[in-house]
């Protein structure tokens, strides 16, 4: 099984390709021979000469944050687990990539599976883990076959399986395919899915994966890209790796840009090195001729939308060390965890969706509402009912049946979902409605009718 040919465009001057360094080389393919020719599994060989705790310390020092959406520091996540108590624990790689606007793991899985496997075996060695699963959404059927083949190749060469490279360390890796449900990207849902159950997310506490994960044993769940970075932390050294990024957000981050830009695609950039404006206008070639920027969803569809002309007041450290207020335009917001957080949204999975002035915000929100209504797992009443009602209301508004109270009702429904559910899907489906209504109230009022009273 091979993927269809893919040629990555040459890097933009601001890009720094680590994860996609090999994929961008002409003639690079997913076979182990090619990977070995490009220094493949050298980092694993290095790792096996280290003490596991040294690898964990390196990951901590690298400031690597999870690339799946929540942005949790990876080293800290690993440290929650006692690795030497002789009890079983697991690593599960989250390759469910289904947050609208995100499309980076797809390319890693299809075109450089050994990078993931090497990162995973290093992570397993560091955490004394002997059984790992790679959960891949079933809409990537080729990727599952490619990763399976790569695991078999790696096993034949002694990089996976029993007594890896003579070190005495054993690690088995299996691929597990999803079945078309977005909720399985939520880590506890993914674990339920992997246990063969209906993937209803587990309540936290007590079911933190690090405590009661797969089969109720401590489990690390990391995104595909995150696990790949582990290899590069060892290769480059944690200091060098951390230096590439911004404070507390080390290394590179793959940003996926879609929607109304001239050059949509994914760009691997040092974390925190570009602003939204630079990303859209410089790296992605700006908007189509004659169009104006209207809105940006910066971190996958669940992230709160930003309006093009917004000005934010944020607190920054002044010259005297005191916190002072500073005004910042939307396009000057830096694409990193802290900066997007300070303006009320999030970097999430770094899936940037750009909308120009031809876009109807009621239409756009309705599209997302339909997505969330379809994908709500149905476990929690506020989300199951609320996501459906938000979708029904925006659909009715678009069909010409808007009523004066619709904006208020929508907001009321959204406010009663967020914070009232077992998992973060509640926020994920409420935030688009809350933010679209807050940022573009006039568009919703126009469609709802002018008087604002119920009719």
């Amino acid at each position, binding site marked *: 099984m091979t993927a269809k040919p893919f040629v990555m465009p040459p890097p933009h001057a601001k890009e720094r390709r680590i994860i996609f360094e090999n994929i961008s080389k002409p003639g690079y393919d997913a076979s182990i021979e090619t990977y070995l020719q490009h220094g493949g599994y050298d980092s694993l060989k290095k790792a096996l000469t280290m003490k596991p705790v040294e690898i964990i310390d390196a990951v901590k020092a690298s400031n690597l944050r999870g690339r799946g959406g929540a942005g949790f520091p990876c080293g800290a996540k690993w440290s929650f687990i006692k690795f030497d108590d002789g009890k079983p624990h697991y690593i599960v790689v989250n390759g469910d990539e289904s947050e609208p*606007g995100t499309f980076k793991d797809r390319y890693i899985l299809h075109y450089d599976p050994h990078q993931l496997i090497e990162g995973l075996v290093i992570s397993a060695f560091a955490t004394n883990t002997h059984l790992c699963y790679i959960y891949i959404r079933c*809409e990537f059927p080729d990727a599952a076959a490619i990763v399976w083949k790569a695991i078999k190749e790696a096993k034949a060469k002694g990089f996976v399986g029993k007594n890896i490279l003579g070190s005495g360390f054993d690690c088995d890796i299996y691929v597990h395919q*999803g079945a*078309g*449900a977005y909720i399985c990207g939520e880590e506890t849902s993914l674990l339920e899915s992997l246990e*063969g159950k209906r993937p209803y997310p587990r309540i936290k506490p007590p079911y933190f994966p690090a405590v009661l994960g797969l089969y109720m044993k401590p489990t690390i769940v990391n995104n595909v890209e995150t696990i790949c970075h582990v290899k590069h932390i060892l290769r480059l050294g944690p200091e060098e790796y951390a230096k590439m990024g911004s404070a507390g957000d080390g290394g590179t981050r793959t940003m996926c840009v879609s929607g109304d830009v001239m050059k949509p695609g994914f760009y691997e950039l040092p974390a925190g090195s570009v602003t939204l404006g630079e990303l859209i206008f410089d790296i992605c070639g700006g908007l189509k001729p004659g169009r104006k920027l209207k809105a940006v969803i910066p971190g996958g569809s669940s992230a709160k939308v930003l309006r093009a002309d917004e000005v934010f007041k944020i607190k920054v450290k002044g010259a005297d060390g005191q916190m002072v207020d500073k005004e910042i335009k939307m396009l000057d917001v830096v694409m990193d965890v802290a900066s997007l957080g300070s303006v009320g949204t999030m970097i999430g999975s770094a899936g940037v969706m750009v909308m120009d002035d031809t876009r109807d915000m009621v239409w756009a929100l309705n*599209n997302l509402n339909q997505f969330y209504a379809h994908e709500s797992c149905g476990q929690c009443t506020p989300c199951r009912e609320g996501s459906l009602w938000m979708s029904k209301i925006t659909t009715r508004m678009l069909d010409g049946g808007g009523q004066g109270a619709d904006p208020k009702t929508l907001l009321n429904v959204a406010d009663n979902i967020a914070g009232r559910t077992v998992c973060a899907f509640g926020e994920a489906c409420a935030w688009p409605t809350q933010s679209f209504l807050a940022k573009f109230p006039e568009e919703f009022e126009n469609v709802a009718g002018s008087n604002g009273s119920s009719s």
Partner: protein
Amino acid sequence: MTATAADPTAATERQADKVTPEFEGEIDEIITHYPVSKRSASLPLLHYWQNHFGSVDDSGIEWIATKLELQPINIYELVTFYPWFRREAAGKTIIRVCRTLACAMAGSYAVKEQFCSAVGLDPHVEHHAFGSAPPTTADGKFSVEFVECLASCGSAPVALINNTLHEKISPETIPGIVDQYK
């Protein structure tokens, strides 16, 4: 008893009756991937079953449950939850058009209608019911349905046709794409 058209059990073919030793051997191999709990194999077994038989009928649910020492409800609740699984066979070629925002902005609604027209389906028939087959041509060759985000927003609009992703689809490319599957 002579089977008649009125007898609901008459012509019903049970998928489980067609299980071969080779098929079961593959199933047994899959179960070895889950040394801790074989219940974990329920999803991969459902995939294997549906890939082989085109859908999962009651006998399939019961067969898998028995194989994994579970109750049929434990499998049934998965078939009814996951959008991927079907209780009825779909067309030989399934065209899954991405519906979500980036693809919608790039024209996926029109793309879906054009795919329907190109294979001879009414573009305005909606498909909602989980488990039922998506709209399928009378000759059983094509099914067309919307699916949620396929994670290829940078090359929108996209469609997953059987196992192949088609990107940057336009009205001009649709007839050629459909021809590949005729």
